[in-house]
């Protein structure tokens, strides 16, 4: 075994349901760990989570560190950061991955700051490579290349952490491919006793209201998405109708969400969800760089827009220059006639 630490994945869960991004990261973590010749290990933190453990093995965890305590439910940053820091000090992992979710993005920087480790936000790609720092003339082998969009998505930067391990990143949801689980795969369970004090448990949750999302864009095979060109809330019904007929989900650009035509759960793009369906139909979406960042992984893209110069046409496989109010009913009619 190499003399470097293992690859760790922070497992995000809500009421015992594991976030998809954490499973995506286990799959990615397994790939990175194989390249480095180390193990993939999962950090499962909360209360009464025993039933989650097997799933983590099946998705690639060799070890599950399980920290349970009533004070770790519901999630608050400081107690979680304390548990993670104590584990880092004890085991010295090489890499630590978090989902770039609301929880991940408030927890990871608190840990990185205390550890004096570098942290790169919202990565869209990760790989292992060597790095030569031209300024300090130092070279590093087998470092984590942390690739992320910056400047509103106009550039893609590759960033390397040159200080203490772990090399920490948050990774956008939906960008890492989730492999099929291996049923019956087993690993090692390490139960951790959280050493919490009053210093970490100062924040009290008085009220907590949440609902699960009413749409699963990440898992959708077909997405029909509407943008500002849809024109108004009433016309959005047309987008929903096409999605229903084709058996798909409804997506939207930020402009349509900001206009209040549909809620944020449906937003595709840099500040929404990254999707990769079999078919993506972009209706009245001009195709800003931020939107394209979330959908160019789709297998087939159809774009409908009245503006022949809309940037969306540059990434589409089928370009339809026309009015969606005419084109969509034609599509519905044609599909009903053939299917």
């Amino acid at each position, binding site marked *: 075994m190499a003399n470097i630490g293992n690859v760790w994945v922070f497992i995000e869960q809500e009421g015992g349901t594991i976030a998809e991004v954490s499973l995506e990261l286990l799959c990615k973590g397994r790939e990175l760990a194989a390249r480095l010749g180390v193990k993939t290990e999962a950090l499962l933190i909360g209360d009464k989570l025993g039933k989650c453990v097997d799933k983590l093995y099946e998705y690639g965890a060799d070890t599950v560190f399980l920290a349970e305590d009533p004070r770790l439910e519901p999630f608050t940053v400081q107690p979680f950061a304390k548990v993670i820091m104590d584990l880092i000090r004890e085991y010295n992992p090489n890499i630590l991955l978090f989902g770039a979710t*609301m929880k991940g993005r408030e*927890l990871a920087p608190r840990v990185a*700051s205390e550890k004096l480790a570098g*942290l790169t936000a919202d990565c869209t790609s990760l790989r292992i490579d060597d790095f030569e720092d031209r300024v300090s003339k130092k070279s590093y082998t087998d470092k984590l290349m942390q690739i992320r969009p910056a400047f509103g998505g106009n550039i893609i930067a590759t960033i390397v*952490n040159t200080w203490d391990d772990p090399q920490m990143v948050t990774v956008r949801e939906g960008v890492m491919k989730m492999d099929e689980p291996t049923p019956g795969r087993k690993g090692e369970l390490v139960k951790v006793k959280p050493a919490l004090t009053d210093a970490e448990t100062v924040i009290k949750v008085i009220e907590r209201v949440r609902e699960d999302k009413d749409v699963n864009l990440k898992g959708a095979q077909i997405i029909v998405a509407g943008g500002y060109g849809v024109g108004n809330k009433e016309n959005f019904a047309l987008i929903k109708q096409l999605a229903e007929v084709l058996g798909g989900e409804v997506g939207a650009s930020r402009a349509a969400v900001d206009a209040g035509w549909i809620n944020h759960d449906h937003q595709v793009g840099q500040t929404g969800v990254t999707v990769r369906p079999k078919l993506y139909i972009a209706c009245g979406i001009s195709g800003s760089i931020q939107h394209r960042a979330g959908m160019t992984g789709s297998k087939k893209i159809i774009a409908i827009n009245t503006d022949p110069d809309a940037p969306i046409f540059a990434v589409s*496989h089928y370009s339809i220059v026309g009015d969606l109010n005419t084109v969509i009913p034609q599509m519905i009619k044609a599909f009903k006639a053939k299917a």
Partner: protein
Amino acid sequence: MTVSYTVIVFVKQVPDTQNITGEAMTPEGTVNRGALPAIFNPEDLNALELALQLKDRYNAKVVVGTMGPPNAAEVLRNALFRGADEAFLLTDRAFAGADTLATSYALSCAAKKYGKFDLILCGRQAIDGDTAQVGPQLAEKLNIPQICYIEDVIKLEKGKITAKRAIEGGYEVLEAPTPSLLTVIDSNIPRPQNAMRIMKFKKAKTKSELIKANSTYTDANERAAEEKRLEDKDLLIYEWSAEDVGADKERIGFAGSPTKVKEIMSVVLTATDTKKVEASEKGISSLIQELINDHTLG
């Protein structure tokens, strides 16, 4: 009513990445910062607005601070125009090249230099990097609690704050001791600049700006007297160097930044092989047929 609470708002002057024009990118694909207008980071305006609401409700004193080049004093004046009471600029070449860890360390030194405070407010994230890391890292550096994604403050009391924040799919109401750090999301409408305040605070200056405007100063005493005169009228924007805030040189700027940029690439449109489909019943019908045939549909 006497001042009851002190709220520090950390803000950032950022290039306007939301309205990128052709000239903003060089032919080599790097960002031409000079071609982008410098603006008040949008969510920092929400943080300032929330602080000013605390001033309205509790007579809190609002102190605005930033780290940046000398001309970042512009965002501080902008904040004074909207209602902030005091401002400080952290500026030094030694801060250049800082990543989020080095930035949060520098800001923590500035907060300590300022003195006692009850709350620190920041925007959730800045539009040039979108990392949302500096707020939580600053809280850790100061060893105070953090609450991110704040929508509103429900109640501020001596030693305690109750606030509402967004969580995935909903919201939470949290109670935290003060001092605490809050990061604020786009959940209020920032008040505009006030005409009376513009008249007064357009004269607010930093030490560097005073020197620049009065190149005739012959000795330090004369300049110090001018600074004192401005301070007495609440028109001095405090300007601090790395040394002034007692920052360790090894922990700021490039030297204090663990993350290094290996490579930058511009995002180019990957030209896809596009098939033009006629927007007619016939065109659409054959498209649908093609998608059924290759099992994309049906």
